[in-house]
């Protein structure tokens, strides 16, 4: 009952970060999380809750942040669109993060570590995490639209080729269907090992045919642009 009261108080007013810090984690966390929890499901944060959380953190939902958060809290495969209280608690307790501004700072740092670091390893792990995270349980693929959006957010800022690929996939429209794990995985390989002008690509190589089709498209486009 006490918890509830605190939650109400916090949600009704804008709370300053300094004030939240004063409370110990065990007290602050439940109150903080419960602001975003799904109605009737206090252990789960749904779509609305996530939106609210990002608003609170003054961060955009559009970028890679939500996925980096999911990656860092160790979200289970197929749980795209929700967060679990247990994941949050386990992840943030050691850092004593129990407020939106604190999380915002932490997330910004995580974003830099993954997206802007010279160390490719962390990024590869993050990229590999995304596919199963997005995929529905039992499905082999993720919808093309979803994959394209993801690549736009995650890959395109790092690789010019990925930017072209997103352009290609978008141009295909309906024809660009579901994306398999292989295409997902190989696209990163492709971006890492092939130059933006396609040097390093060979039709004899084992690229998935989706990537070959992209190369054909790009060659034609670049060719007609040059002419």
């Amino acid at each position, binding site marked *: 009952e006490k918890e509830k009261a605190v939650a109400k108080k916090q949600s009704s007013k804008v709370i300053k970060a300094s004030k939240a810090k004063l409370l110990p984690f065990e007290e602050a966390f439940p109150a903080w999380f419960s602001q975003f929890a799904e109605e009737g499901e206090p252990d789960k944060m749904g779509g609305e809750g996530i939106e609210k959380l990002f608003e609170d953190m003054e961060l955009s939902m559009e970028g890679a942040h939500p996925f980096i958060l999911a990656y860092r809290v160790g979200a289970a495969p197929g749980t795209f669109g929700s967060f679990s209280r247990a994941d949050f608690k386990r992840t943030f307790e050691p850092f004593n993060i129990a407020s939106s501004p604190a999380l915002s700072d932490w997330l910004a740092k995580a974003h830099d570590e993954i997206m802007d670091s010279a160390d490719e390893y962390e990024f590869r792990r993050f990229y590999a995490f995304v596919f199963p995270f997005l995929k529905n349980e039992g499905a082999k693929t993720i919808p093309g639209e979803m994959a394209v959006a993801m690549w736009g957010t995650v890959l395109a800022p790092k690789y010019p080729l990925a930017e072209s690929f997103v352009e290609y996939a978008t141009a295909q429209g309906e024809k660009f269907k579901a994306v*398999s794990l292989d295409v997902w995985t190989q696209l990163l*390989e492709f971006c890492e090992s092939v130059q933006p002008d396609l040097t390093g690509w060979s039709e*004899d190589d084992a690229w998935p045919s989706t990537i070959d089709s992209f190369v054909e498209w790009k060659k034609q486009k670049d060719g007609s642009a040059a002419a």
Partner: protein
Amino acid sequence: MPPQSNLPDSRDLNATWKFLEEGVDHIMTRLNEGMSYKKYMDLYTVSYNYCTSSRMNSGGINETLGVSGSAGRSGANLMGADLYKHLKEYFIEHLKGVRAEAADLSDEPLLRYYTREWDRYTTGASYVNRLFTYLNRHWVKREKDEGRKNVYVVYILALVMWKEHFYTALQQPPASGGNKLTAAVLKLIEKQRNGETIETDLVKKVIDSFVALGLDETDTNRQNLEVYRQAFEAPFLSATDSFYSAESEQYLAANSVTEYMKKAESRLGEEESRVDLYLHASTRKGLVSKCEEVLVKNHAEIMQEEFQRLLDQEQEPDLHRMYLLLSRIPNGLDPLRERFEQHVKKAGLDSVERAVGAAAAAPADGDAKGAAAEKKESAVEPKAYVDSLLAVHKKNSELVGKAFRGDQGFVASLDRACREYVNRNKACSSPNKSPELLAKYADSLLRRSNKASEDADIEQALSDTMTVFKYIEDKDVFQKFYSKMLANRLIKDTSASEDAESSMIGKLKDACGFEYTSKLQRMFQDMQLNRDFNAGFKEKMQQTHDESELSIDFQCLVLGTSSWPLAAPTAKLNLPAELLKTKDRFEHYYMNKHSGRKLTWLWQHSRNELRTLYTPQKYFFVTSTHQACILLQFNSSGDSLSLQDLVTGTGLPEDSLKPILALLVKQRVLELKDGMYELNLGFKSKKIRVPLNVPIKAEQKQESADVMKHVDEDRKILIQATIVRIMKSRKTLKHQQLIAETIDQLKARFQPRVPDIKKQIDVLLDKEYLEREEGSRDNYRYLA
């Protein structure tokens, strides 16, 4: 011993030699005068006595006579050194005279002199040799055994002397700057090459002497061709080179290439027989290859350039000659084979283009059946098309057999060219057109309407079909069309001959294996089973039903779904009561016999015959079941029906119904009046049996498209199965290797495209039959 008294004392060298010298000279110079046996025996005896005298005499004399002192080296004292020395001096002296006489001679007189002297000298020497048999056997032998050089048996000594004191002088006259003897021989040979008649014997003898003079220092029994090679072969080959270089240049300047080839051919023949005539056999190889170089290789290009013209003009003998000539030099035929390939390919493409052109021109004169527009696609008649392919193959395959002696390289060129023009030509708007046209051609041969009625003709035409089939890349497409058409022949009972059908299937089986034709064979088996089954059904019905109930003559073909290329109808059909009863009876009968099977009725393939009772003249309408269902509606529901009535009555959707009705209206069986379909009660036709079931055009086109869709589906499965099979045995494999092996395994069936294979690899990766090996991008691993 009285006889000995006439002969010189064997201890007296001077007397002995004097006696012997006179005899030797007789043999050497006057043998034609003859020599008595006694004289010869005396000479022999004297020479023998002298050589054996050492054993009877004290060593003192021997010492004074041992010129070289070599006798002292061995234990036994053998006499002979003095004799040998005298003999040698005699030969030297003798040859001085011979040489002197030859001094002013050259050319033919020299050759004549040389050969005469050679004959005389060698004959004499061989007799002299026998006189000194004892010397040869003992003194000479021992000298040689002890390793002394320049000691020979007497005959060889004579030859050595000839070589040193006559031959060498003859060959090296410093003044005339060349080998007089060789020059004379070469001059004579050149005369012969220029067509003059010469005494070949002269050449042969001189050359024999060259061979004989090749003496091996260490072993005189061994043939040594040193002299022959140096004095004759080398200058001869170089003379050959310049002679034919000059001749071929001149000849080509004045004559055509074809004439030149005849010349070269005969020259090569002449030179080969020259070897047999008077050269040493070892020269054959060098001479032939020299001639090939000068006559063929040096002019190979100009001949190769002539090739195209000869092909165009079909000059078979000249082509044959060119083949024989150029096959003599390494890689000489390669450009020909390449050009031949291009030639055949072009001929094939042209031939097809002519056939297409003729087909396009044909409908313009007159019979415009509204087909002109539609002809664009399938312009070429299958027969005209296949004939156009075959004509080029036949002609060029004969050419390969005759002019190029069935040479493997040319066969390969022909095959490559045929493969190219058979699969990609003017008539093939898509890569599947060629197999389709070929299948249609086969269909036309095997259908009953076919004109080539003689069995032998059909057999030949089927073999011809197989000739083209061999080159078809997409054999799976052919298979699909063929089985479709075979199904049609069997269902409609239009097959001309069962023998011809099974002969064709046998041929396909030979070409592609059991699997390729197994479905076709099963189709035949089904037909056989059906004959018995229908008879059984009929019998049963007659037993269990009254005659009046069996007003319909009914026959049914039960066909295995897996072997027949037939699809179940998409539209539902309400059978009219007239037919329904029989259908139900048959189903009942069938299910009794084979429980657990499912019967699907393929109405679109069945045929009905209806008898008109409403027309003054009674007609039989041969109809499709759909047509029959429509017409039978007029039995039950009146003479004027709306489209909606018919939709309700037949259960067919409007879209399917409309074209069928349109056809019936066109055939004047029905009349369309104010949106109502009415039976034309005044129907007239010249025939009593009226075939109404002509296929609708759109259906035909649809059929081709369907076939291709099936082919594509089959290919995907086939590619996947092949990949899985390969990976199963290899476990892990590199991408490029997997692609190569897949193509290799499938190419007998069709030419798989790499992107298509890749797509199937994608599918197998997704299905987790394969995975990419960790850490390596282009290695796959099979997942069991």
